[in-house]
């Protein structure tokens, strides 16, 4: 077992043992990318995850040692531990962990050279700036800044960087000054090992709206089936009665069955037919009396 660690110094061995314990004591171990996350935010994320997940930062080499020592299918996580990785331990299922990590993301200012995660839009309206060189700086990157009432104002909404485009230094500076924070920063789950299976983010991102839509569709289907197949339930009995009554009325009116409950409907139909024919007659020269219309 100590095949890989026998030559390591004591603190590293302890570190490797700690990683192994973390993996063994939790249902899930994930590899997260910590790149670009300021230390202050890491603290915040840890606080947010407290009680559900633990983040363990360690050098990649030590992570690799630990995974290899454990061996088996968990060692496949090595493929995802690159750059500034950390491990995350939890007993939640990987979908829930993924969602929680998404929720810990916060907005940050863009650094030059970063890629816009979505369209970056400068909203229309007043700014806190007094007139000065700022107007030119903004205009230079295409932001329609104007001076109005002694203040710098953005004349109209403007998309300055499209999703997927690189944010250059001038734009990054302008966004910083305007207080626009376009970047999503947080722990990015690279892969999760859970009960023998590796889950990657493409599997883990859930479209909740699609689920809600499917729930609505299923509920509609159940409602339809219950009513159309006449399987009364407390939820659908009203609709089933309504359908039966409707059908009976339709038949009654179509067949001109003179029953009290529907004779007004039959009158209505006759009246509409009369009006339709009256209008057609009128368009062919028959003068309608006042009472008709």
């Amino acid at each position, binding site marked *: 077992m100590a095949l890989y660690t026998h030559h390591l110094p004591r603190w590293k061995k302890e570190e490797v043992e700690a990683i192994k314990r973390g993996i063994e004591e939790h249902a899930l171990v994930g590899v997260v990318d910590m790149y670009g996350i300021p230390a202050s935010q890491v603290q915040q994320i840890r606080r947010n995850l407290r009680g559900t997940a633990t983040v363990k930062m360690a050098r990649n080499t030590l992570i690799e040692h630990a995974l290899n020592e454990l061996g088996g299918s968990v060692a496949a996580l090595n493929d995802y531990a690159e750059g500034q990785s950390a491990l995350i331990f939890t007993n939640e299922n990987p979908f829930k962990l993924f969602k929680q990590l998404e929720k810990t993301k916060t907005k940050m200012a863009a650094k030059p050279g970063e890629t816009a995660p979505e369209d970056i839009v400068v909203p229309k309206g007043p700014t806190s700036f007094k007139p000065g060189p700022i107007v030119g700086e903004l205009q230079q990157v295409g932001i329609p800044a104007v001076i109005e009432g002694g203040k710098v104002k953005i004349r109209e909404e403007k998309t300055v960087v499209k999703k997927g485009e690189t944010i250059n230094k001038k734009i990054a500076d302008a966004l910083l000054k305007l207080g626009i924070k376009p970047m999503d920063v947080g722990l990015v789950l690279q892969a999760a090992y859970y009960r023998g299976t590796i889950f990657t983010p493409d599997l883990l991102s859930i479209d909740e709206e699609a689920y809600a839509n499917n729930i609505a569709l299923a509920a509609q289907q159940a409602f339809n089936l219950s009513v159309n197949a006449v399987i009364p339930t407390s939820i659908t009995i009203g609709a089933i009665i309504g359908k039966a009554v409707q059908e009976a009325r339709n038949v009654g009116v179509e067949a*001109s069955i*003179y029953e*009290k409950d529907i004779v*007004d409907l*039959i009158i*209505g*139909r*006759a009246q509409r037919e009369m*009006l339709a024919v009256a*209008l057609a007659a009128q368009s062919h020269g028959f003068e309608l009396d006042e009472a008709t219309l």
Partner: protein
Amino acid sequence: MEYIYAALLLHNAGKEITEENVTAVLNAAGVAVDDARVKALVAALEDVNIEEAISKAAVAPVAAAPAAA
């Protein structure tokens, strides 16, 4: 619908809708009158406010005409 047309014709002419009157109108139109249907019609109309039923229906076709076209 002949029976209801006959009834509405009488109503519009200010005549009472009786079995006799309905039958007379239908006869004049050459309809082979079914007494039972006439009876049923007259009975059904007894408690109905025809003016009201007409005015409810009147709202529809004018507005509908363009939409239906």
